[in-house]
């Protein structure tokens, strides 16, 4: 038994913010239908590398695979109104949950806004995840998470004190909104089960992202301070940062907050003379001479491999870690222990490592169990068997290009 077995979800969604919510539900056994169209497939299939062996193809995208395992893929060309609209409503009537992340207004133009859909499914739960929200003067502005992460203040907080802002690789804020979106749907489902009331959820990725910065927003409002990037520094710790280790581009990190931790670190370093100097004696003093401190620590750490060093520091009760690269993640002993990656065979990609949820339910273990679907792979089984569309109707819809 999986935790969410029996829950039916349909996604009018593409890219990360919508489909990854569906992935979390699918990982726990929900039946999730990812709607696409051959005339306009999910952008992750068409515009985002990596593609297997660097060969472009609709069924070769690693990013699509990451966000869509354990789903059914069904095509429906929404531009073919009115028959496509009717069919979409029939799918919604079958479902418990709709996830959509079109630009605000799009579902309405398609005749598929919440009010219209409620008529066919009165207790529908619908998540509308958008850049800036469904209302407000900027509601219709389209955007991607890689840039919204700047509007929401995150990139201003990444970088060296003397350098430009940086980003954390991709659409950072989208995956914050994914967690909040999943929370919203799960709470709404429980509420519906108890009250028979559905719910339309207007989730602005912007607003859910800002939840992660609350203390800094308060700091500005209360103290007038404008938080800004400052490398790896932390106001309450020194040393605190990344330090070089033996090997090419190999780094460890450590964070020394208390006086006791500093003393322990000195002992692990075998009490070199410089640690006895007054300018390193207290946290305050170390903060004042932090560049020099970091240099000294680096001269010590570079003698060891990162692995050796973190064992020494952790054994002494200190917080320390190593900077895993993307390659290292696949052999990290802890992630391996948690079966963080589930290897499944994909007809065009070959062996792909699908991602397990970061939370493990001990009595109802999550997937992934099935690879991501090919474009339109489940048209027949979904329309004919699950939606009980008569063969004749199905054929007509295919001929008309509604099911493309």
């Amino acid at each position, binding site marked *: 038994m999986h*935790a*969410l077995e029996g829950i039916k979800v349909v996604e009018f969604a593409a890219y*990360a913010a919508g489909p990854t919510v569906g992935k979390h539900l699918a990982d*726990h056994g929900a039946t999730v239908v990812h709607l696409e169209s051959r005339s306009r497939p999910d952008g992750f299939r068409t515009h985002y*590398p*990596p*593609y*297997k062996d660097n060969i472009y193809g609709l069924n070769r995208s*690693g990013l699509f695979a990451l966000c869509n395992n354990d789903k059914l893929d069904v095509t429906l060309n929404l531009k073919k109104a009115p028959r496509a609209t009717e069919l979409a409503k029939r799918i919604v009537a079958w479902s418990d949950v709709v996830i959509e992340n079109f630009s605000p207004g799009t579902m309405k133009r398609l005749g598929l806004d919440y009010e219209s859909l409620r008529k066919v499914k009165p207790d529908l739960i619908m998540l509308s995840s958008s850049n800036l*929200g469904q209302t407000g*003067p900027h*509601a219709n502005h389209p955007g*991607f998470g*890689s840039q919204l992460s700047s509007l929401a203040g995150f990139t201003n907080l990444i970088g060296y004190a003397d350098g430009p*802002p*940086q980003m*954390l690789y*991709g659409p950072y804020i989208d995956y914050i909104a994914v*967690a*909040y979106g999943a*929370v*919203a749907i*799960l*709470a709404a489902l429980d509420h519906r089960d108890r009250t028979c*009331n559905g*719910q*339309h959820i*207007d989730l602005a990725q*912007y*607003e859910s992202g*800002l*939840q*992660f910065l*609350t203390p*800094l927003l308060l700091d500005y*409002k*209360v103290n007038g301070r*404008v938080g*800004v990037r400052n490398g*790896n520094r932390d106001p309450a710790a020194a040393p605190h940062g990344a*330090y070089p280790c033996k090997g090419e581009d190999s780094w460890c990190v*450590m*964070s020394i*907050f208390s006086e006791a931790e500093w003393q322990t670190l000195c002992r692990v370093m075998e009490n070199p003379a410089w640690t006895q100097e007054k300018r390193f004696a207290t946290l305050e003093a170390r903060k004042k001479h932090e560049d020099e401190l970091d240099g000294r620590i680096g001269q010590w750490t570079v003698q060891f491999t990162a692995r050796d060093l973190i064992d020494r520091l*952790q054994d002494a009760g200190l917080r*320390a*870690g*190593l*900077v895993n690269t*993307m390659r290292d993640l*696949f052999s990290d*002993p*802890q992630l391996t*222990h*948690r079966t963080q990656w589930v290897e499944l065979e994909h007809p065009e990609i070959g062996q792909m*490592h699908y991602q397990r*949820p*970061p939370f493990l*339910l*001990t009595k109802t273990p999550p997937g992934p169990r099935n690879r991501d679907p090919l474009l339109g792979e489940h048209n027949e089984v979904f329309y004919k068997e699950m939606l009980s569309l008569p063969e004749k109707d199905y054929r007509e819809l295919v001929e008309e290009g509604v099911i493309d």
Partner: protein
Amino acid sequence: MASEDKNKGLLAPFRVLDLTDELGFLCGKILGDLGADVIKIEKPGGDPARMIGPFYRDEPHVEKSLYWFGFNNNKRGITLNLESSRGQELFRRLATSAEFVIESYMPGYLDRLGLGYTTLNQINQRLILTSITPFGQTGPYSRFRASDIEVMAMSGCMSLTGDPDRPPLRVSFPQSYQWTGSYAAVGTLTAHLYRQRSGIGQQVDVAAQACLLWAFSHAHTFWDLNRHLEKRAGAYMTGRSITGARMRVFWPCKDGYLNFIIYGGEAGRKTNQALVEWMDSKGRAPESLKRKDWKSFNIAEVTQEEIDRMEEPITRFFEGVTKREFFENVIRREMLGYPVATVEEISSDPQLKARDFWQELAHPELKASLPYPGGFAKFSQAPCKIWRRAPLIGEHNEEVYCRELGFKKDELEKFKREGVI
């Protein structure tokens, strides 16, 4: 505290006991945002996280931490010494009437106190115990200690941030605790939905390291599919082209930085065209950009040389633009891109104002009212907001122990004397 309204919250019937430190604060807060009755349980004297800055008016004090305010609102607060046998007994009693317990102790700690999952499951079979740690309940790193920077390092995030010739970077304001707390809430509610349908509670094992794998999206799939290693690239973005071209993301402008990316696809085509039109309206668009056929422009196959040629005139154009001008134009011209906002700019954003995002919350003991970020989403038929400010130390001891558990006031005094609360 507008309790009628709170009763309409999606999770209003449920009680949560929150034993977490900063790694798990946000989990309980999210459940509270949805109306759950969350009781933050602190050790006598208060949680050490009350001394995490910044502070109200920069005065370090256990009742003035803005960090505490931000992530512990929507919770009531009681004190309890879990290391005393009386305290353990009180906790077991609280656990009989709770639906959720959230904790972030070192794995095994609660077992040693006789409060581990096995015991809690005996008292309350429906209970969900969410255990949040840096690396997970079992495994080779399960006993490793970590603060934010260690989680960011071990999850791989830092390998993607920073300049190639300088150290890898974390985000300057700690992020990993919020990622962990929010994904813990997803796990908690997944288990909740199953419990509601099956009657079976369970333990949810949340690992911060694994939560942060989502923060970098898909950078690891390049290795998985093609044995290509994505690495830190400073102010640039990599991985958008199969030729290995890197695109600039951050562009200096008159008063700061802009985030603009040359994208492909339909959205990219519109944006690129709109930018060239904007540049042209100022007489700043070179022929090479004006002549470009954006319909056939394929970002996935673009070469570095082509990108460099495009970026050069754009760099010069953006140098003469202010953040506000850029924002106005991206909105008006429906282009992709945003200024790199500061908290100051976010605070005056008209979009957030129009949506009533900010929520004033009274702090009578500070004789002040502070504007908080409000609910994380808008629900058509239920509130999602802040009902109460973060608790003072032991603020709800009497309410919970006397009025709800039925102890007499003199018993409460005795607990205090004995260091139980």
